[in-house]
């Protein structure tokens, strides 16, 4: 039933099909499956969208998800232009979520349980954070953010960026891989009942990890784009905002 043997910790080692130089391992195959499932569902649902009162249940699901992701992004970044981050963060969340939840299907190995997949996702975040920062506050403004408070902090900022990328990758990999391993080990020790409970726990962990990955990516992007807005804050119309909402002026004033 399980195509991943116990002594392999990564689905990269499971080669399904080989043709000359090319070899298709389980990670690539199941990544393609997830991409296909996501694209197919989105295409079929958005084929006939309606703006009326009567909407199909699939459209309802999609609207619910997109609205939920947007609300979460808006709560983190505290800005009105949350739609800019929606494609990137939402794609990360949906991909990891579907990848982890599909683990209930026998014979499926989550591609997020492979370090190469999670490292690729974390590298996407590593590249996206400076991109959003530069688009938001220009090249000078973004680089100045590295030199604060003094120039000597530059190596620490760079080290921090690299180490948090590594942490992002290893956190997801470790959680998903540990779930698969624990279920496999328990199947050998106590076969009937206990692995099911651990599997349910693993599903919960997978959903939380998808949420955490997306939220952390959003927090990193927000920290790269917010530095400038906070400095701009005293010059904006802070007084009128303070009269309206005295305890909330910091969030509103950033606009």
């Amino acid at each position: 039933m399980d195509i991943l043997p116990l002594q392999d910790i990564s689905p990269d080692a499971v080669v399904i099909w080989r043709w000359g130089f090319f070899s298709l391992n389980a990670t690539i195959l199941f990544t393609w499956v997830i991409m296909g499932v996501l694209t197919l569902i989105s295409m079929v649902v958005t084929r006939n969208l309606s703006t009326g009162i009567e909407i199909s249940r699939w459209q309802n699901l999609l609207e619910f998800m997109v609205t939920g992701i947007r609300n979460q992004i808006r709560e983190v970044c505290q800005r009105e232009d949350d739609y800019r981050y929606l494609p990137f963060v939402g794609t990360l969340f949906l991909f990891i979520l579907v990848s982890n939840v599909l683990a209930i299907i026998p014979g499926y190995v989550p591609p997020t349980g492979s370090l190469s997949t999670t490292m690729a996702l974390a590298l996407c975040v590593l590249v996206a954070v400076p991109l959003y920062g530069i688009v938001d506050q220009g090249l000078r403004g973004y680089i100045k953010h590295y030199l604060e408070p003094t120039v000597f902090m530059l190596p620490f900022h760079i080290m921090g960026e690299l180490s948090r990328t590594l942490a992002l990758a290893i956190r997801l990999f470790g959680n998903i891989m540990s779930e698969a391993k624990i279920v496999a080990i328990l199947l050998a020790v106590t076969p009937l009942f206990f692995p099911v409970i651990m599997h349910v726990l693993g599903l919960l962990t997978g959903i939380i990890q998808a949420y955490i990955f997306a939220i952390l990516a959003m927090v990193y992007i927000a920290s790269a784009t917010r530095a400038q807005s906070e400095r701009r804050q005293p010059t904006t119309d802070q007084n009128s905002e303070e009269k309206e909402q005295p305890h909330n002026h910091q969030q509103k004033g950033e606009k």
Partner: protein
Amino acid sequence: MDNTSLIGMVSIITAGLTMAIGTVGPALAEGKAVVQAMHSIAQQPDERNTITRTLFVGLAMIESTAIYCFVISMILIFANPFWNHVISR
């Protein structure tokens, strides 16, 4: 005692010690974080969403140290480079 059994023994003992010692700190830290978050939610139930989200992000940060230990011990048990080197020679 030859190299093979020595490497196997040290790897397994180190894997167990890594998990045992490496999970103490994160467990205590997560407990403290959850306690504080529960206090905060009890005091300010309106801020529940913000507190929960920050708690999850913080827990993920804390947990990552335990996950590092787990990955190291998994590598020592299942994909040990020294063991593979000795075996393949």
